[in-house]
Protein backbone atom coordinates (compact mmCIF):
# COMPACT_ATOMS: atom_id res chain seq x y z
CA UNK A 1 0.00 0.00 0.00
CA UNK A 2 2.76 2.44 0.99
CA UNK A 3 4.81 1.51 -2.06
CA UNK A 4 1.82 1.95 -4.32
CA UNK A 5 1.20 5.39 -2.82
CA UNK A 6 4.80 6.37 -3.41
CA UNK A 7 4.63 5.29 -7.05
CA UNK A 8 1.38 7.18 -7.52
CA UNK A 9 2.85 10.35 -5.99
CA UNK A 10 6.02 10.15 -8.10
CA UNK A 11 4.04 9.45 -11.26
CA UNK A 12 1.79 12.45 -10.63
CA UNK A 13 4.71 14.80 -9.95
CA UNK A 14 6.53 13.55 -13.06
CA UNK A 15 3.40 13.97 -15.19
CA UNK A 16 2.99 17.59 -14.07
CA UNK A 17 6.68 18.32 -14.60
CA UNK A 18 6.34 16.76 -18.04
CA UNK A 19 3.33 18.92 -18.85
CA UNK A 20 5.09 22.07 -17.64
CA UNK A 21 8.28 21.38 -19.60
CA UNK A 22 6.81 19.86 -22.78
CA UNK A 23 6.36 23.10 -24.75
CA UNK A 24 9.70 24.55 -23.66
CA UNK A 25 11.60 21.39 -24.58
CA UNK A 26 9.87 21.23 -27.97
CA UNK A 27 10.60 24.92 -28.57
CA UNK A 28 14.32 24.63 -27.79
CA UNK A 29 14.79 21.23 -29.46
CA UNK A 30 13.31 22.31 -32.77
CA UNK A 31 15.21 25.59 -32.69
CA UNK A 32 18.15 23.28 -33.45
CA UNK A 33 16.32 21.78 -36.44
CA UNK A 34 18.36 21.58 -39.65
CA UNK A 35 15.40 21.46 -42.06
CA UNK A 36 12.79 24.14 -42.61
CA UNK A 37 9.93 22.93 -40.44
CA UNK A 38 10.04 22.77 -36.63
CA UNK A 39 8.13 19.48 -36.52
CA UNK A 40 9.23 15.86 -36.08
CA UNK A 41 11.37 14.15 -37.21
CA UNK A 42 14.26 16.03 -35.62
CA UNK A 43 16.97 16.62 -38.21
CA UNK A 44 19.53 18.59 -36.18
CA UNK A 45 21.34 19.62 -34.23
CA UNK A 46 22.17 22.67 -36.25
CA UNK A 47 22.72 26.31 -35.35
CA UNK A 48 21.48 27.38 -38.76
CA UNK A 49 18.37 29.20 -37.54
CA UNK A 50 20.24 31.01 -34.80
CA UNK A 51 22.55 32.38 -37.50
CA UNK A 52 19.54 33.45 -39.56
CA UNK A 53 17.93 35.13 -36.58
CA UNK A 54 21.08 36.85 -35.34
CA UNK A 55 21.70 38.34 -38.77
CA UNK A 56 18.06 39.45 -39.19
CA UNK A 57 18.19 43.24 -38.88
CA UNK A 58 14.52 43.68 -38.02
CA UNK A 59 14.67 41.15 -35.19
CA UNK A 60 17.93 42.49 -33.83
CA UNK A 61 16.71 46.08 -33.82
CA UNK A 62 13.51 44.89 -32.09
CA UNK A 63 15.69 43.11 -29.54
CA UNK A 64 17.67 46.29 -28.96
CA UNK A 65 14.41 48.29 -28.64
CA UNK A 66 13.06 45.82 -26.10
CA UNK A 67 16.18 46.06 -23.97
CA UNK A 68 16.15 49.87 -24.15
CA UNK A 69 12.44 50.15 -23.31
CA UNK A 70 12.80 47.63 -20.46
CA UNK A 71 15.84 49.37 -18.93
CA UNK A 72 14.51 52.92 -19.17
CA UNK A 73 10.90 52.23 -18.20
CA UNK A 74 11.98 50.06 -15.25
CA UNK A 75 14.44 52.69 -14.04
CA UNK A 76 11.72 55.34 -14.15
CA UNK A 77 9.16 53.07 -12.47
CA UNK A 78 11.62 52.25 -9.67
CA UNK A 79 12.58 55.90 -9.18
CA UNK A 80 8.97 57.09 -8.99
CA UNK A 81 7.98 54.11 -6.84
CA UNK A 82 10.86 54.56 -4.44
CA UNK A 83 10.30 58.28 -3.89
CA UNK A 84 6.60 57.73 -3.27
CA UNK A 85 7.22 54.77 -0.94
CA UNK A 86 9.72 56.84 1.05
CA UNK A 87 7.32 59.76 1.24
CA UNK A 88 4.42 57.64 2.48
CA UNK A 89 6.49 55.57 4.92
CA UNK A 90 8.34 58.46 6.55
CA UNK A 91 5.82 61.28 6.59
CA UNK A 92 2.26 61.61 7.74
CA UNK A 93 0.23 62.76 4.78
CA UNK A 94 -3.50 63.40 4.81
CA UNK A 95 -5.50 60.72 2.95
CA UNK A 96 -2.39 58.59 2.69
CA UNK A 97 -4.38 55.37 2.32
CA UNK A 98 -6.42 56.75 -0.55
CA UNK A 99 -3.33 57.98 -2.40
CA UNK A 100 -1.50 54.68 -1.91
CA UNK A 101 -4.59 52.92 -3.24
CA UNK A 102 -4.53 55.18 -6.28
CA UNK A 103 -0.91 54.34 -7.07
CA UNK A 104 -1.54 50.57 -6.83
CA UNK A 105 -4.84 50.72 -8.75
CA UNK A 106 -3.37 49.85 -12.21
CA UNK A 107 -2.48 46.39 -10.82
CA UNK A 108 -6.16 45.46 -10.96
CA UNK A 109 -6.73 46.37 -14.61
CA UNK A 110 -5.75 44.19 -17.56
CA UNK A 111 -2.92 45.33 -19.83
CA UNK A 112 -5.29 45.40 -22.78
CA UNK A 113 -7.44 48.05 -21.12
CA UNK A 114 -4.44 50.12 -19.98
CA UNK A 115 -3.04 50.03 -23.52
CA UNK A 116 -6.37 50.93 -25.08
CA UNK A 117 -6.91 53.88 -22.75
CA UNK A 118 -3.46 55.24 -23.55
CA UNK A 119 -4.04 54.75 -27.28
CA UNK A 120 -7.28 56.77 -27.08
CA UNK A 121 -5.65 59.63 -25.14
CA UNK A 122 -2.52 59.66 -27.33
CA UNK A 123 -4.66 59.72 -30.47
CA UNK A 124 -6.64 62.59 -29.08
CA UNK A 125 -3.53 64.53 -27.97
CA UNK A 126 -1.77 63.88 -31.27
CA UNK A 127 1.03 61.82 -29.72
CA UNK A 128 2.30 59.46 -32.44
CA UNK A 129 2.73 55.73 -31.89
CA UNK A 130 6.30 55.12 -30.77
CA UNK A 131 8.59 53.22 -28.45
CA UNK A 132 8.33 56.10 -25.99
CA UNK A 133 4.55 55.67 -25.89
CA UNK A 134 5.02 51.94 -25.18
CA UNK A 135 7.61 52.81 -22.51
CA UNK A 136 5.09 55.12 -20.82
CA UNK A 137 2.64 52.22 -20.76
CA UNK A 138 5.27 49.95 -19.21
CA UNK A 139 5.90 52.49 -16.45
CA UNK A 140 2.14 52.52 -15.77
CA UNK A 141 2.07 48.73 -15.24
CA UNK A 142 5.35 48.56 -13.28
CA UNK A 143 5.11 51.62 -11.03
CA UNK A 144 2.47 50.07 -8.71
CA UNK A 145 4.55 46.92 -8.45
CA UNK A 146 7.79 48.75 -7.61
CA UNK A 147 5.96 50.98 -5.16
CA UNK A 148 4.31 48.05 -3.38
CA UNK A 149 7.53 46.03 -3.09
CA UNK A 150 9.65 48.91 -1.79
CA UNK A 151 6.92 50.22 0.51
CA UNK A 152 6.52 46.77 2.10
CA UNK A 153 10.26 46.64 2.85
CA UNK A 154 10.40 49.95 4.71
CA UNK A 155 10.75 48.89 8.33
CA UNK A 156 11.33 50.75 11.58
CA UNK A 157 14.98 49.83 11.93
CA UNK A 158 15.70 52.06 8.93
CA UNK A 159 13.98 54.99 10.62
CA UNK A 160 16.56 54.81 13.42
CA UNK A 161 19.41 54.92 10.92
CA UNK A 162 17.86 57.87 9.14
CA UNK A 163 17.29 59.72 12.41
CA UNK A 164 20.91 59.14 13.38
CA UNK A 165 22.06 60.62 10.05
CA UNK A 166 19.76 63.61 10.52
CA UNK A 167 21.06 64.16 14.08
CA UNK A 168 24.57 64.22 12.67
CA UNK A 169 23.51 67.07 10.38
CA UNK A 170 22.67 65.38 7.07
CA UNK A 171 20.09 67.14 4.90
CA UNK A 172 16.93 65.30 3.80
CA UNK A 173 18.35 64.60 0.34
CA UNK A 174 21.60 63.31 1.83
CA UNK A 175 19.64 61.03 4.15
CA UNK A 176 17.70 59.79 1.15
CA UNK A 177 20.62 59.01 -1.12
CA UNK A 178 23.36 58.10 1.40
CA UNK A 179 21.28 56.16 3.94
CA UNK A 180 17.85 55.05 2.69
CA UNK A 181 18.81 54.01 -0.84
CA UNK A 182 21.77 51.83 0.25
CA UNK A 183 19.75 50.24 3.07
CA UNK A 184 16.82 49.45 0.78
CA UNK A 185 19.05 48.29 -2.06
CA UNK A 186 17.75 44.67 -2.16
CA UNK A 187 14.14 45.81 -2.53
CA UNK A 188 15.09 48.41 -5.16
CA UNK A 189 17.11 45.84 -7.07
CA UNK A 190 14.35 43.22 -6.90
CA UNK A 191 11.64 45.58 -8.10
CA UNK A 192 13.89 46.80 -10.91
CA UNK A 193 14.52 43.28 -12.21
CA UNK A 194 10.90 42.24 -11.82
CA UNK A 195 9.85 45.34 -13.78
CA UNK A 196 12.49 44.46 -16.40
CA UNK A 197 11.07 40.97 -16.90
CA UNK A 198 7.51 42.30 -17.19
CA UNK A 199 8.47 44.99 -19.68
CA UNK A 200 10.65 42.57 -21.64
CA UNK A 201 7.72 40.13 -22.04
CA UNK A 202 4.92 42.62 -22.44
CA UNK A 203 3.06 42.34 -25.73
CA UNK A 204 -0.36 43.96 -25.92
CA UNK A 205 0.59 47.51 -24.85
CA UNK A 206 3.59 47.55 -27.19
CA UNK A 207 1.40 46.13 -29.96
CA UNK A 208 -1.14 48.93 -29.58
CA UNK A 209 1.27 51.82 -29.01
CA UNK A 210 4.12 51.23 -31.48
CA UNK A 211 4.13 51.24 -35.26
CA UNK A 212 7.33 50.76 -37.28
CA UNK A 213 9.98 50.59 -34.59
CA UNK A 214 8.68 47.98 -32.22
CA UNK A 215 9.65 45.61 -29.42
CA UNK A 216 10.67 41.97 -29.70
CA UNK A 217 7.38 40.34 -28.57
CA UNK A 218 5.54 42.31 -31.28
CA UNK A 219 8.12 41.34 -33.91
CA UNK A 220 7.78 37.68 -32.84
CA UNK A 221 4.02 38.09 -33.18
CA UNK A 222 4.57 39.29 -36.75
CA UNK A 223 6.71 36.20 -37.41
CA UNK A 224 3.80 33.99 -36.33
CA UNK A 225 1.93 34.97 -39.50
CA UNK A 226 4.26 32.68 -41.40
CA UNK A 227 3.05 29.73 -39.33
CA UNK A 228 5.39 27.23 -37.72
CA UNK A 229 8.88 28.39 -38.46
CA UNK A 230 12.24 27.41 -36.93
CA UNK A 231 13.25 31.08 -36.92
CA UNK A 232 10.51 31.69 -34.34
CA UNK A 233 11.87 28.75 -32.33
CA UNK A 234 15.37 30.22 -32.36
CA UNK A 235 14.40 33.75 -31.34
CA UNK A 236 11.92 32.34 -28.80
CA UNK A 237 14.65 30.22 -27.24
CA UNK A 238 16.92 33.27 -27.02
CA UNK A 239 14.16 35.28 -25.32
CA UNK A 240 13.57 32.41 -22.90
CA UNK A 241 17.30 32.35 -22.11
CA UNK A 242 17.36 36.06 -21.31
CA UNK A 243 14.28 35.75 -19.08
CA UNK A 244 15.85 32.83 -17.20
CA UNK A 245 19.02 34.85 -16.59
CA UNK A 246 16.93 37.75 -15.23
CA UNK A 247 14.93 35.36 -13.02
CA UNK A 248 18.09 33.71 -11.68
CA UNK A 249 19.66 37.10 -10.91
CA UNK A 250 16.53 38.03 -9.00
CA UNK A 251 16.62 34.76 -7.07
CA UNK A 252 20.35 34.91 -6.28
CA UNK A 253 20.62 38.57 -5.36
CA UNK A 254 17.36 39.22 -3.58
CA UNK A 255 15.65 36.12 -2.28
CA UNK A 256 18.86 34.48 -1.04
CA UNK A 257 19.73 37.55 0.95
CA UNK A 258 16.29 38.02 2.41
CA UNK A 259 16.31 34.58 3.99
Amino acid at each position, binding site marked *: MRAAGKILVSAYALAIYGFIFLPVVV*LVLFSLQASSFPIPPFTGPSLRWYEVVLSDRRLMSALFNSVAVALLSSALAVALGFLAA*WGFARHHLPRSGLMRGLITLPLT*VSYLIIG*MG*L*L*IVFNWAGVPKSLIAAGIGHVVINLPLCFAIIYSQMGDHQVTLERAARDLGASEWKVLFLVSVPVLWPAIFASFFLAMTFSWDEFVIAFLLTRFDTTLPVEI*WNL*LRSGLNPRTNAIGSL*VFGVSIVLALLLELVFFRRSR
Partner: protein
Amino acid sequence: MSESQSGRLLPWALVTPALLWTLVFFIIPFVAMFVLSFMQHEDGRATFENYRQFFDNPSYWRALVNSLQVTLTVTAISVLLAYPFAWILAEIVPVRYQRLALMLAVLPFWTSYVVRSYSWLLVLAQNGVVNQALTGSGIVDDPLQIANTRGATIIGFVHFFVMLLTLTIFANLKQLSPSYRRAAADLGAGPVRVFLHVILPLTLPGIMVGAFLTFVLAIGDYITPQILGGNNELLMPQLIMMQIGRRGDFPLASALAIILMVVVTIAYIICSRWLKIERT
Protein backbone atom coordinates in the same frame (compact mmCIF):
# COMPACT_ATOMS: atom_id res chain seq x y z
CA MET B 1 11.77 79.51 1.97
CA SER B 2 11.79 78.86 5.70
CA GLU B 3 12.87 75.57 7.25
CA SER B 4 9.39 74.52 8.32
CA GLN B 5 7.90 75.30 4.92
CA SER B 6 10.39 73.12 3.08
CA GLY B 7 9.80 70.46 5.71
CA ARG B 8 6.13 70.49 4.90
CA LEU B 9 6.61 70.52 1.16
CA LEU B 10 9.18 67.72 1.01
CA PRO B 11 6.77 64.79 1.48
CA TRP B 12 4.58 66.17 -1.30
CA ALA B 13 7.61 66.53 -3.56
CA LEU B 14 8.28 62.83 -2.97
CA VAL B 15 4.81 61.44 -3.67
CA THR B 16 3.61 63.86 -6.34
CA PRO B 17 5.56 62.45 -9.32
CA ALA B 18 4.07 58.97 -8.85
CA LEU B 19 0.59 60.37 -8.26
CA LEU B 20 0.79 62.61 -11.30
CA TRP B 21 2.01 59.76 -13.48
CA THR B 22 -0.90 57.58 -12.37
CA LEU B 23 -3.35 60.40 -12.89
CA VAL B 24 -2.17 61.41 -16.37
CA PHE B 25 -1.40 57.98 -17.84
CA PHE B 26 -3.92 55.79 -16.04
CA ILE B 27 -6.90 57.69 -14.59
CA ILE B 28 -7.37 60.13 -17.47
CA PRO B 29 -7.11 57.40 -20.16
CA PHE B 30 -9.59 55.33 -18.21
CA VAL B 31 -12.04 58.23 -17.92
CA ALA B 32 -11.55 58.96 -21.64
CA MET B 33 -12.37 55.34 -22.45
CA PHE B 34 -15.46 55.49 -20.26
CA VAL B 35 -16.69 58.71 -21.93
CA LEU B 36 -15.92 57.36 -25.38
CA SER B 37 -18.01 54.26 -24.71
CA PHE B 38 -21.06 56.56 -24.68
CA MET B 39 -20.24 58.18 -28.01
CA GLN B 40 -21.36 57.38 -31.51
CA HIS B 41 -18.52 56.03 -33.67
CA GLU B 42 -19.46 58.11 -36.73
CA ASP B 43 -20.26 61.55 -35.35
CA GLY B 44 -19.31 61.52 -31.66
CA ARG B 45 -22.82 62.22 -30.32
CA ALA B 46 -23.83 60.92 -26.90
CA THR B 47 -25.52 57.52 -27.12
CA PHE B 48 -26.11 54.18 -25.42
CA GLU B 49 -25.83 52.56 -28.83
CA ASN B 50 -22.53 50.76 -28.09
CA TYR B 51 -23.91 49.04 -25.03
CA ARG B 52 -27.20 48.32 -26.77
CA GLN B 53 -25.28 46.69 -29.62
CA PHE B 54 -23.62 44.35 -27.16
CA PHE B 55 -26.91 43.22 -25.68
CA ASP B 56 -28.68 43.01 -29.05
CA ASN B 57 -26.01 41.27 -31.08
CA PRO B 58 -25.88 37.56 -30.18
CA SER B 59 -22.35 37.16 -31.55
CA TYR B 60 -21.09 39.77 -29.04
CA TRP B 61 -22.98 38.07 -26.24
CA ARG B 62 -21.49 34.79 -27.35
CA ALA B 63 -17.95 36.19 -26.85
CA LEU B 64 -18.68 36.96 -23.21
CA VAL B 65 -20.26 33.55 -22.65
CA ASN B 66 -17.25 31.87 -24.34
CA SER B 67 -14.89 33.90 -22.18
CA LEU B 68 -16.69 32.94 -18.99
CA GLN B 69 -16.87 29.26 -19.95
CA VAL B 70 -13.20 29.07 -20.91
CA THR B 71 -12.01 31.04 -17.88
CA LEU B 72 -14.05 29.06 -15.35
CA THR B 73 -12.96 25.76 -16.91
CA VAL B 74 -9.32 26.89 -16.83
CA THR B 75 -9.60 28.01 -13.21
CA ALA B 76 -11.17 24.73 -12.08
CA ILE B 77 -8.72 22.46 -13.95
CA SER B 78 -5.71 24.53 -12.84
CA VAL B 79 -6.67 24.38 -9.15
CA LEU B 80 -7.36 20.63 -9.33
CA LEU B 81 -4.01 19.93 -11.01
CA ALA B 82 -1.93 22.37 -8.97
CA TYR B 83 -3.16 21.50 -5.49
CA PRO B 84 -1.87 17.89 -5.34
CA PHE B 85 1.34 18.99 -7.05
CA ALA B 86 1.96 21.80 -4.54
CA TRP B 87 1.12 19.37 -1.74
CA ILE B 88 3.71 16.87 -3.02
CA LEU B 89 6.33 19.64 -3.24
CA ALA B 90 5.55 20.90 0.26
CA GLU B 91 5.03 17.60 2.09
CA ILE B 92 6.77 14.74 0.29
CA VAL B 93 9.88 16.29 -1.27
CA PRO B 94 12.71 16.51 1.32
CA VAL B 95 13.00 20.05 2.67
CA ARG B 96 16.49 20.69 1.30
CA TYR B 97 15.35 19.97 -2.26
CA GLN B 98 12.05 21.86 -2.04
CA ARG B 99 13.38 25.19 -3.24
CA LEU B 100 15.02 23.59 -6.26
CA ALA B 101 11.90 21.53 -7.04
CA LEU B 102 9.73 24.63 -6.88
CA MET B 103 12.12 26.69 -9.00
CA LEU B 104 12.12 23.98 -11.67
CA ALA B 105 8.33 23.80 -11.57
CA VAL B 106 7.97 27.49 -12.40
CA LEU B 107 10.91 27.87 -14.79
CA PRO B 108 8.80 28.03 -17.99
CA PHE B 109 6.78 30.74 -16.22
CA TRP B 110 9.54 33.06 -17.39
CA THR B 111 9.11 32.38 -21.10
CA SER B 112 7.48 35.30 -22.79
CA TYR B 113 3.74 35.04 -23.23
CA VAL B 114 3.83 35.06 -27.03
CA VAL B 115 6.59 32.46 -27.17
CA ARG B 116 4.82 30.18 -24.71
CA SER B 117 1.65 30.13 -26.77
CA TYR B 118 3.66 29.52 -29.94
CA SER B 119 5.40 26.59 -28.23
CA TRP B 120 2.04 24.99 -27.53
CA LEU B 121 1.15 25.47 -31.17
CA LEU B 122 4.24 23.44 -32.05
CA VAL B 123 3.10 20.70 -29.70
CA LEU B 124 -0.55 20.63 -30.73
CA ALA B 125 -0.42 21.38 -34.46
CA GLN B 126 -1.82 19.02 -37.09
CA ASN B 127 1.66 17.62 -37.76
CA GLY B 128 3.05 18.56 -34.32
CA VAL B 129 4.66 16.42 -31.66
CA VAL B 130 1.49 15.11 -30.04
CA ASN B 131 -0.22 14.16 -33.28
CA GLN B 132 2.89 12.50 -34.70
CA ALA B 133 3.27 10.51 -31.49
CA LEU B 134 -0.39 9.46 -31.60
CA THR B 135 -0.43 8.46 -35.27
CA GLY B 136 3.08 6.95 -35.12
CA SER B 137 2.13 4.66 -32.26
CA GLY B 138 -1.12 3.74 -33.98
CA ILE B 139 -3.39 5.08 -31.24
CA VAL B 140 -5.28 7.16 -33.78
CA ASP B 141 -5.34 6.86 -37.55
CA ASP B 142 -5.77 10.51 -38.51
CA PRO B 143 -4.20 13.48 -36.72
CA LEU B 144 -6.52 15.18 -34.25
CA GLN B 145 -7.60 18.75 -34.73
CA ILE B 146 -6.38 20.31 -31.47
CA ALA B 147 -4.84 23.62 -32.52
CA ASN B 148 -7.38 26.32 -33.37
CA THR B 149 -9.95 24.91 -30.99
CA ARG B 150 -11.16 25.91 -27.57
CA GLY B 151 -9.27 22.89 -26.19
CA ALA B 152 -5.95 24.38 -27.29
CA THR B 153 -6.76 27.69 -25.60
CA ILE B 154 -7.61 25.85 -22.40
CA ILE B 155 -4.39 23.79 -22.51
CA GLY B 156 -2.30 26.92 -23.04
CA PHE B 157 -4.00 28.71 -20.15
CA VAL B 158 -3.86 25.72 -17.80
CA HIS B 159 -0.12 25.40 -18.43
CA PHE B 160 0.48 28.95 -17.24
CA PHE B 161 -1.89 28.91 -14.30
CA VAL B 162 -0.81 25.52 -12.93
CA MET B 163 2.58 27.15 -12.40
CA LEU B 164 1.11 30.27 -10.82
CA LEU B 165 -1.22 28.31 -8.53
CA THR B 166 1.51 25.86 -7.54
CA LEU B 167 3.47 28.87 -6.27
CA THR B 168 0.59 30.35 -4.26
CA ILE B 169 -0.69 27.04 -2.86
CA PHE B 170 2.84 25.92 -1.96
CA ALA B 171 3.38 29.13 0.01
CA ASN B 172 0.03 28.54 1.68
CA LEU B 173 0.84 24.97 2.71
CA LYS B 174 4.23 25.97 4.09
CA GLN B 175 2.60 28.54 6.34
CA LEU B 176 0.48 25.89 8.07
CA SER B 177 1.89 24.96 11.42
CA PRO B 178 2.53 21.18 11.67
CA SER B 179 0.98 21.24 15.14
CA TYR B 180 -2.54 21.41 13.65
CA ARG B 181 -1.99 18.17 11.81
CA ARG B 182 -0.37 16.54 14.83
CA ALA B 183 -3.23 17.61 17.08
CA ALA B 184 -5.81 16.18 14.69
CA ALA B 185 -3.83 12.95 14.35
CA ASP B 186 -3.47 12.69 18.15
CA LEU B 187 -7.23 13.00 18.45
CA GLY B 188 -7.56 9.97 16.20
CA ALA B 189 -8.11 11.40 12.72
CA GLY B 190 -6.71 9.38 9.82
CA PRO B 191 -4.70 11.04 7.05
CA VAL B 192 -7.78 11.51 4.85
CA ARG B 193 -9.79 13.15 7.62
CA VAL B 194 -6.82 15.34 8.60
CA PHE B 195 -6.65 16.53 5.02
CA LEU B 196 -10.40 17.09 4.55
CA HIS B 197 -11.11 18.67 7.91
CA VAL B 198 -7.87 20.47 8.76
CA ILE B 199 -5.54 21.14 5.83
CA LEU B 200 -8.10 21.82 3.12
CA PRO B 201 -10.19 24.35 5.10
CA LEU B 202 -7.06 26.15 6.28
CA THR B 203 -5.68 26.50 2.76
CA LEU B 204 -9.03 27.45 1.19
CA PRO B 205 -8.58 31.25 1.48
CA GLY B 206 -5.24 30.92 -0.32
CA ILE B 207 -6.83 28.80 -3.04
CA MET B 208 -9.54 31.41 -3.50
CA VAL B 209 -6.97 34.16 -3.91
CA GLY B 210 -5.12 32.09 -6.51
CA ALA B 211 -8.35 31.18 -8.29
CA PHE B 212 -9.45 34.80 -8.44
CA LEU B 213 -6.06 35.84 -9.81
CA THR B 214 -6.37 33.10 -12.45
CA PHE B 215 -9.84 34.29 -13.40
CA VAL B 216 -8.80 37.94 -13.74
CA LEU B 217 -5.62 37.28 -15.73
CA ALA B 218 -7.22 34.68 -18.03
CA ILE B 219 -10.35 36.62 -18.88
CA GLY B 220 -8.32 39.69 -19.92
CA ASP B 221 -5.78 37.85 -22.03
CA TYR B 222 -5.69 38.28 -25.79
CA ILE B 223 -2.59 36.32 -26.80
CA THR B 224 -3.43 32.76 -25.75
CA PRO B 225 -6.88 32.57 -27.39
CA GLN B 226 -5.67 34.39 -30.50
CA ILE B 227 -2.65 32.15 -31.11
CA LEU B 228 -4.03 28.81 -29.90
CA GLY B 229 -7.78 29.13 -30.32
CA GLY B 230 -7.69 30.99 -33.60
CA ASN B 231 -10.67 32.87 -34.93
CA ASN B 232 -13.19 30.01 -34.97
CA GLU B 233 -14.78 31.31 -31.81
CA LEU B 234 -13.99 34.66 -30.25
CA LEU B 235 -13.32 35.51 -26.62
CA MET B 236 -13.92 39.02 -25.27
CA PRO B 237 -10.34 40.34 -25.63
CA GLN B 238 -10.27 39.11 -29.24
CA LEU B 239 -13.56 40.86 -29.92
CA ILE B 240 -12.20 44.09 -28.39
CA MET B 241 -8.98 43.93 -30.41
CA MET B 242 -10.99 43.27 -33.54
CA GLN B 243 -12.95 46.51 -33.05
CA ILE B 244 -9.68 48.44 -32.69
CA GLY B 245 -7.67 46.73 -35.39
CA ARG B 246 -10.04 46.03 -38.25
CA ARG B 247 -12.68 48.67 -37.78
CA GLY B 248 -11.07 51.42 -35.71
CA ASP B 249 -14.29 51.51 -33.69
CA PHE B 250 -12.93 52.79 -30.39
CA PRO B 251 -16.32 53.61 -28.83
CA LEU B 252 -17.54 50.03 -29.24
CA ALA B 253 -14.18 48.64 -28.08
CA SER B 254 -14.39 50.90 -25.01
CA ALA B 255 -17.91 49.74 -24.20
CA LEU B 256 -16.81 46.10 -24.47
CA ALA B 257 -13.80 46.78 -22.23
CA ILE B 258 -16.04 48.42 -19.63
CA ILE B 259 -18.39 45.40 -19.74
CA LEU B 260 -15.40 43.10 -19.22
CA MET B 261 -14.30 45.18 -16.21
CA VAL B 262 -17.79 45.01 -14.73
CA VAL B 263 -17.70 41.20 -15.03
CA VAL B 264 -14.33 41.10 -13.24
CA THR B 265 -15.68 43.39 -10.51
CA ILE B 266 -18.68 41.10 -10.01
CA ALA B 267 -16.32 38.12 -9.74
CA TYR B 268 -14.33 40.05 -7.14
CA ILE B 269 -17.43 40.80 -5.10
CA ILE B 270 -18.51 37.15 -5.21
CA CYS B 271 -15.01 35.96 -4.23
CA SER B 272 -14.48 38.44 -1.42
CA ARG B 273 -17.84 37.62 0.11
CA TRP B 274 -17.11 33.95 -0.05
CA LEU B 275 -13.73 34.47 1.54
CA LYS B 276 -15.18 36.37 4.45
CA ILE B 277 -17.69 33.63 5.16
CA GLU B 278 -14.87 31.11 5.18
CA ARG B 279 -12.78 33.11 7.61
CA THR B 280 -15.44 33.54 10.30
